[in-house]
């Protein structure tokens, strides 16, 4: 790890030992404006790592988060893959959950009202087997109270059909986005897979198809073999790599995409601490998501929010937007 200046080291956190309430410096406005989507701060939690928020709400008030990206939601309920579904790897983990979820109707009936009741900002991550299915899920969510945006998951590596298959080719990725665009007036975030040769190309294709924003990255496909049993550890053979191990790769992809599209970017992949998150903001992300870190430190997002605020204050900034893309000379997005 590179040497950190003391001002940064002061808010590294990430130990799960802190108050469940936020302490923020005066004079810093954390509001994150992502086009038509305004978040109270730039720190969201990543789909699939936060369930629907119940579990974390036992530890802290989740309405303090910028947004909650709920678990990937499909048209019909899905049981997911057979176990083992997770395995730890150096500074990371592989998962092959297989989009276990109760289906969009149940999410609308029980989960979204609960998220609204606790004051959380909900973004619904959706996944389908066909362009029509993506459109149908979006249509059902369109007028549901409390849905701030739809995040299209064209990047899940853990389902045999659909999922990532859509995200690795520009025409299919664009077709899914156009279909969702026709089905809803909600802001659309398209979540990109890193498992491609040129992520910029896919980014441009989905923006042209009407995506209001992008989020990246989803997990990198990988595997682990049990050498005694001589077979893959995961029940699904392969899974998606996440956690600190992927952070440099994710950051580089955000950097690249920020030079190729003007729309707001939500950066994620291996973020644990505020200094990690600030790197993504400086590369050109307008907001970030915390994923796997929630497992190792359920309170990590709170440290990240406070740390970003402290960094802004320490460097004389009044708002987050002032640092977005500040390290990236080719940053195309707008900055006030």
């Amino acid at each position, binding site marked *: 790890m590179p040497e950190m200046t003391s001002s940064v080291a002061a808010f590294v956190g*990430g*130990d*799960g030992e802190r108050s469940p309430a936020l302490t923020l410096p005066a004079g810093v406005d954390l509001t994150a404006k992502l086009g038509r989507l305004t978040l109270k701060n730039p720190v969201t939690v990543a789909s699939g790592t936060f369930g629907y928020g119940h*579990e974390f709400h036992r530890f802290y008030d989740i309405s303090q988060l910028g947004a909650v990206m709920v678990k990937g939601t499909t048209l019909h309920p899905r049981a997911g893959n057979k176990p083992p579904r997770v395995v730890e790897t150096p500074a990371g983990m592989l998962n092959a*959950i297989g989009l276990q979820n109760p289906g969009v109707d149940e999410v609308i009936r029980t989960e979204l009202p609960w998220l609204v009741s606790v004051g959380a900002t909900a973004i619904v991550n959706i996944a389908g087997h066909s362009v029509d299915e993506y459109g149908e899920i979006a249509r059902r969510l369109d007028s549901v109270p409390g849905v701030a945006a739809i995040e299209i998951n064209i990047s899940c590596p853990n389902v045999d059909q659909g999922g990532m298959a859509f995200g690795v080719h520009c025409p299919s990725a664009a077709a899914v986005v156009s279909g969702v665009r026709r089905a809803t007036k909600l802001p659309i975030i398209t979540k990109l897979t890193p498992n491609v040769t040129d992520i910029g190309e896919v980014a441009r294709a989905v923006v042209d198809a009407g995506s209001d924003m992008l989020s990246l990255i989803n997990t990198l496909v990988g595997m682990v073999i049990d050498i005694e049993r001589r077979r893959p550890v995961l029940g699904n053979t392969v899974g998606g790599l996440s956690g600190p191990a992927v952070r440099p790769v994710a950051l580089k992809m955000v950097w690249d995409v920020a030079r190729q599209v003007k729309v707001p970017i939500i950066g994620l992949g291996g973020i644990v*601490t505020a200094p990690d998150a600030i790197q993504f903001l400086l590369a050109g992300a307008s907001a970030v998501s915390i994923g*796997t870190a*929630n497992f190792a430190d359920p309170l990590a997002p709170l*440290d990240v929010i406070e740390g970003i605020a402290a960094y802004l204050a320490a460097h004389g900034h009044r708002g987050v937007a002032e640092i977005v893309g500040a390290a990236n000379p080719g940053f195309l997005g707008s900055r006030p």
Partner: protein
Amino acid sequence: MPYIGRATVTAKREFARNMVSITIQCPAVAQESLPGQFVQVRAWPGPGTAADPLLDRPLSVAGVDKQKGTFELLVRVVGRGTRLLASVPVGETIRVTGPLGRGFLEAAGAAGPSILVGGGVGLAPLKFLAEVLTAGGHEVLSLVGARNAAELPPPGELAGKVQVATDDGSAGFHGTVVALLEQMLTMVVFRSGRVPAPVVYACGPTPMLRALKASATLLGLPVYLSLEERMACGIGACRGCAVRQVGPKMAAGEVKMVRVCHEGPVFAAGEVDLDA
């Protein structure tokens, strides 16, 4: 609400071969824990400074002392995480999250005469259960299995009556704990109807649980199993530890998953698929 925060290691001792008992000062966990529940433990820095290992380790609560505000873990060193935990000196702190999950008696709904079946690290939650049941005046018989005599816990560690079984016959019954249970039950102690049928509680390796489920079902006894599955979050959020629910409560064709860390780790044997 589960506790999350630092807790101090106050004592360590060898419990059995390859198993260390660690006492931890943490009043919240000591007060709240029920037998069968577990804690997530991190005996190394938070993921912000050390992502190796990345995840916390799930460990059963093996006993509590509410007055002193301490709880006990029984840990077998099998890899990096458990090695780091076992080497924490007395007086140092670790991070603890818990108690988590649903315990034996919550799964069973009531306490009564009980047979506890387990071995190895499976003894951890059973030791706690035996204490709580005997303290409540219930009859407890523990059937403890090990490969050989040296791996058995010393006599007196478990509350209630204990019988042992070893794979090599170096102590007690020669064979598995499940075979021992079968042999005992065919002696029809309680099937006469005069004695209430006991409930069987078990924790151990999946093959043992599978064998137990098969034979206890045959004998018509209620059986509750504590399962182990690979976990990421340990708190119910990631769906990483899900197993398939089965049984009469399910509609035809219905597929339902339950989380070992949240709906479990204890389930009625007939309620979960152990073969996946």
